[in-house]
């Protein structure tokens, strides 16, 4: 993707915003009010995009605020508040803002607001989830009322995509404690952390004709069964995180339907490469051949998953490398590797817990096959509470979970780069790092794709991150709710359903 000329922008509009699939067949209709239930909510619920941590937060933020760009169904970034965003060297970017966009509480959107909204992430006190990315901003300055210039520490072709994340949504200049005053499709009516968020239609939203709904009440029902029941009972019209086992129930109801989103979300077994024995290449190879991916897809996810190949880029991604041979369950090879590694009969604890979806079951599958090739895997179950701070990446063998990221570069640089904060496996691969850097600055799209293909190959062959499947996201909704158009960035249309759906009743 070259710089955003008008043409590409229009194209972007097309690919990004036009409802494409069957869902949108009917014509949008204005009015109506719905209640939406996500799976997680707490007193930590926030109106600050920078602090967004849970699906509920993302949904809330996308209702209230708008970003400079947004990721389309094509997984490509398209301009939003930014009318144009250009760069010659991928290091210095020039943003031209859309004119006549107003905040809910009045005042037109200007470069000052954008500068403020981007720079605040660099303040460690704020506790921004994007601090590490914001660190790349060497300079963010206003260039006239509608112009913003961002200088990066190094070239990064993916800046537009990164800016599309909910954390970079734009606030009013000088907002110390965000209160929902944004330029988004909905205005905040009520906000009670851990209880509910109520938003009403923003009549002068900058996308003409949108949104369609008058009112959205956003709550969370942590208990999956209750969430389904609420949907079936008609108390809510849209829910996310439907468990694969529950899809039967929803489908059996004439008034409801599920929406499945193949996504890049994956739970992976992390084999620390900087420790022994988990660092032993033969051991890793053996483990990769012990994974019965079809079984996991069938038994754990009732088929709502895409077989993975031990590298983080899913098949439906533009940069997916289809030429890597699929690793399959092969006990003989596994046994051969185990014998070479000399780990026969050695007791190896795997740390797994409910914090990572399917981790415990995956572990027990591994355990079962491992036993057959003389590998003694001991499952240590740890509680969800405190998992990330105490267990994740802390043991030779543990499980991790990675949410969809807007670009291949983000996934790689967050989880696979040698010096990344969460380089889960702790591996160090110079070739990989070098490719990653080069890709960021690479101008030629084909060369860039090639680089990403090679990176995937390297991870597949050498990294201790074992990715059995990519987990599909399942939403459940009332049939009368139209315009739901699954989005690879996450459930609930990548958390951006609010402005796109309408109530046909």
């Amino acid at each position, binding site marked *: 993707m070259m710089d955003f000329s008008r043409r590409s922008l229009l194209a972007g509009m097309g690919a990004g915003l036009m409802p494409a699939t069957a869902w949108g067949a009917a014509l949008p209709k204005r009015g109506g009010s719905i209640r939406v*239930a996500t799976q997680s909510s*707490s*007193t*930590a*619920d926030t109106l600050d995009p920078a*602090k967004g*941590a849970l699906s509920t937060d993302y949904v809330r933020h996308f209702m209230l605020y708008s970003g400079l760009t947004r990721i389309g169904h094509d997984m490509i970034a398209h301009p939003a508040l930014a009318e144009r965003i250009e760069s010659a060297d991928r290091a210095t970017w020039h943003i031209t803002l859309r004119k006549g966009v107003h905040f809910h509480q009045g005042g037109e959107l200007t470069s000052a607001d954008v500068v403020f909204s981007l720079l605040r992430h660099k303040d*460690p*006190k704020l*506790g*921004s*989830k994007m*601090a*590490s990315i914001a660190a790349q901003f060497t300079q963010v300055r206003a260039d006239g009322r509608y112009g913003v210039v961002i200088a990066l520490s190094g070239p990064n072709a993916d800046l537009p995509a990164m800016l599309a994340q909910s954390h970079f949504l734009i606030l009013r200049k000088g907002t110390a*404690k965000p209160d929902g005053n944004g330029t988004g499709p909905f205005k905040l009516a009520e906000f*009670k*952390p*851990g*209880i*509910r968020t109520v938003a009403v239609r923003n009549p002068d939203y900058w996308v003409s004709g949108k949104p369609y709904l008058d009112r959205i009440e956003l*709550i*969370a*029902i*942590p*208990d999956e*069964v*209750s969430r389904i*029941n*609420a949907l*079936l*009972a*008609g*108390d*809510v019209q849209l829910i996310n995180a439907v468990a694969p086992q529950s899809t039967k129930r929803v489908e059996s109801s004439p008034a409801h339907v599920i929406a499945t989103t193949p996504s890049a979300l994956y739970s992976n077994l992390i084999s620390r490469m900087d420790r022994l024995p988990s660092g032993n290449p033969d051991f890793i190879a053996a483990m990769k051949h012990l994974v019965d991916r079809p079984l996991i897809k069938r038994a754990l996810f009732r088929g709502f998953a895409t077989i993975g190949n031990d590298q983080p880029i899913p098949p439906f991604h533009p940069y997916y490398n289809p030429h890597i041979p699929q690793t399959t369950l092969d006990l003989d090879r596994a046994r051969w590797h185990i014998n070479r590694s000399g780990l026969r009969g050695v007791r190896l604890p795997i740390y797994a817990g409910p914090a990572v979806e399917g981790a415990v079951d995956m572990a027990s599958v591994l355990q079962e096959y491992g036993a057959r090739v003389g590998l003694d895997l001991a499952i240590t179950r740890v509680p969800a*509470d*405190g998992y*990330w*701070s*105490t267990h*994740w990446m802390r043991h030779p063998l543990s499980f991790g979970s990675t949410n969809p990221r807007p670009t291949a570069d983000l996934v790689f640089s967050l989880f696979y780069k040698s010096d990344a*904060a*969460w380089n889960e496996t702790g591996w160090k691969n110079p070739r990989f790092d070098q490719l990653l850097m080069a890709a960021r600055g690479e101008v030629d799209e084909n060369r860039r794709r090639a680089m990403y293909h090679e990176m995937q190959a390297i991870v597949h062959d050498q990294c201790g991150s074992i990715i059995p499947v990519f987990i599909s996201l399942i939403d459940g909704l009332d049939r009368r709710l139209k315009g739901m158009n699954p989005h690879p960035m996450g459930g609930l249309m990548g958390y951006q359903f609010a402005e796109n759906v309408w109530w046909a009743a």
Partner: protein
Amino acid sequence: MVGGMSGSHRQQSLWPLLLRRIGSALVTLIMVSVVIFALAGLLPGDAAQEALGQSATPEQVAALRHEMGLDQPAPVRYAQWLAGMARADAGQSLVAGMPVAEIIAERLPNTLMLAGMTAALAVPLALAMGITAAIRRGSWIDRAINLASLSMVALPEFLVATLGVLLFCVKLMWLPSLAMVSAEATWSETLRSCALPILSLTVVVVAQMARMTRAAIADQLDRPYVEMARLKGASLSRVVLGHVLPNCLGPIVNAMALSLSYLMGGAIIVETIFNFPGLASLMVNAVTSRDMPLLQACAMIFCSAYLLLMLAADMVALIANPRLRAQ
């Protein structure tokens, strides 16, 4: 039933007791707060880490810790909290960044309402069950009530609750599956939306109370004064209601208080299933987010609720029993 000459007895004997009880209540509250603080100390990670989550960088954590005052040693933090409580200031929630009092104020009424309405249903029910069982001691009714109450307790509350939801919400669509209490809701709405939570909680607490009632009454039925009353021509039910009940009010009320104190903190499962914004889920929330001030506040509330109930029970027992009263 109290008045006249014995009234004065009551005046004399209740006040000192009351004061003594308040004293020991304070001790208990402090002990609870210490225990909670110590327990929370065992938890991995802290508010800062949990707030920043998976993606935290060390600098961020450090900064946030300082922001939250978590970089001070534990005793200091506890002392600060205690001092705050002394000034009736529950402090600031670490994660929500607003006064704990506000958060509590949002939820306490809900919890109280749920507990209150459950009590209003469960207590009479339990009394009825217990008394019937006691009057028909050894009869099939007695056995039936005994069995029913046992299996009531034994079946997981979430099963009972979910059954209720499936039947009344999903199948019949009579009741909402969520207990969405809100300020603007009318009483009837609130009642409708809380009907199932109340029912589920009742199932949990009623059995114990009924059994205790039965035991307390049955224990009195062999007393000479019961035979005397019967030989006056009083029917068994009249005897039980008019003669026995006053004499075993003490143990009964005590059992009830114990069971009801469960309704505050024990409602967590019902709160989760019906998405009821109550204190129990708030406390769980406070644990998972390591929000110490909030956690302490919840603990204090639950503890004082328990102590109050117990005190009330003892008072009732005292008032019901002229002999104790006289001392």
